[in-house]
């Protein structure tokens, strides 16, 4: 889980003073914080780790690196939170309001 995953920055916007962007990784698009890659603009490719862009990368390098990560089964962090919503939970836990 220490590897960054490259993706294409589609758009940049400001959320409460933080620079955010939409990044496309293969078929998945996620919101990513751009504070650590503040000079990235739409169209750039960025390396993203747990929702944070940590560096820019060129397009060919991004494609190659993503292919290796997919082959290694190392792109799971992109969808782990979505898959998790399907896991069962038996009901409200003490202190939680009933939905």
């Amino acid at each position, binding site marked *: *889980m220490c590897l960054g995953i490259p993706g294409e920055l589609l758009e940049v916007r400001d959320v409460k003073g933080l620079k955010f962007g939409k990044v496309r990784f293969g078929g998945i698009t996620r919101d990513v914080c751009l504070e650590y890659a503040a000079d990235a603009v739409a169209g750039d490719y960025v390396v993203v780790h747990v929702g944070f862009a940590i560096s820019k990368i060129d397009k060919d390098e991004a494609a190659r690196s993503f292919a*290796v990560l997919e082959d290694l089964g190392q792109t799971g962090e992109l969808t782990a939170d979505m898959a998790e919503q399907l896991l069962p939970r038996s009901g409200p836990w003490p202190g939680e309001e009933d939905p």
Partner: protein
Amino acid sequence: MKYLDEYRDGGVASSIAKTIAETVTRPWVLMEVCGGQTHSIVRYGIDRMIPPEVELVHGPGCPVCVTSLEMIDKAHAIASRPGVIFTSFGDMLRVPGSRGDLLTLKSRGADVRVVYSPLDAVRIASQNPAREVVFFGIGFETTAPANAMAVYRARKEGVGNFSMLLSHVLVPPAMAAILQAPGNRVQGFLGPGHVCAIMGYREYESLAERYRVPIVITGFEPIDLLEGILMTVRQLETGRAVVENQYARAVTRDGNPAARALVLEVFEVGDRKWRGVGSIPKSGYKIRYEYRMHDAEKRFHVEEIATEESSLCISGQILRGLKKPSDCSAFGTLCTPQKPLGATMVSAEGACAAYYQYGRFLDSASLPAVTAQAPTA
């Protein structure tokens, strides 16, 4: 996929492997530090392409693996409290502590949620002001800027019900601990590429100098690893011990200054216990005093929990490069990814889990030296 096809055709890879074979004149032991590199080495059989004189041992670079049992038990205790929403990266949910894992706790009704980014946990906290929201902040230096930003934003935005259970680990102190340990076998390191993308490699220069050990900052792709091995072997063969950067397309000497600055704003270096290894001085991050209201260890008083690891497990020796997964009597039989006994099997990036996933237990079963090691208990 062109690159992988090229790799599989073997032209470039076998030419580098051939150069390594021409360069090496005697045995050397190299350690890769990053769990992603371990995974890649075993997946692509890099250790079998290089000459037998060059032995690869696998370092402690899987943050999920080295998170201490005590910390997992603390997470379990906090997640069990009424009113708590406990958030984590998905990798941590199946890791067994001495009281079970977080996924089982969730199936019993505890509110345990997987998040993609630590900032998602801050958002959940601001949406649920009546609940305590805790994030399990684990990782190496690559993850630290994300975790630091979550704490920083929670304080800035006044999200008082957000806190972080921090269990961060740092690579250079672990490398120093390996080099200082009695019986150390490691003579050269493949440094962790993405950790250095954040931190740069100045810290590694003093390690190389102090311990007279070559360190080559290396990527995780198969050709990267072969190049990193070649560069390290060249240094060893010519008696040099410096930091070289194989992964220059992602790593600079100073890393990512904005990320490093925020990490230092929120965290400070402190001692940290590593699963399978024990306590290493100044090998982790703690939350600074100014941010203590977001420190889950201060917010929730969790009693110290005494824990005990399996007596069969040799993960401590594997993490220090003294043994390989196939040296373990429990590997693939009593210890599997479904029922792990210790650190290196609990996550896919652990050396034992990587060996298991790619069928290396079949080799170990055929080796007489290993089958002779029957469990003693």
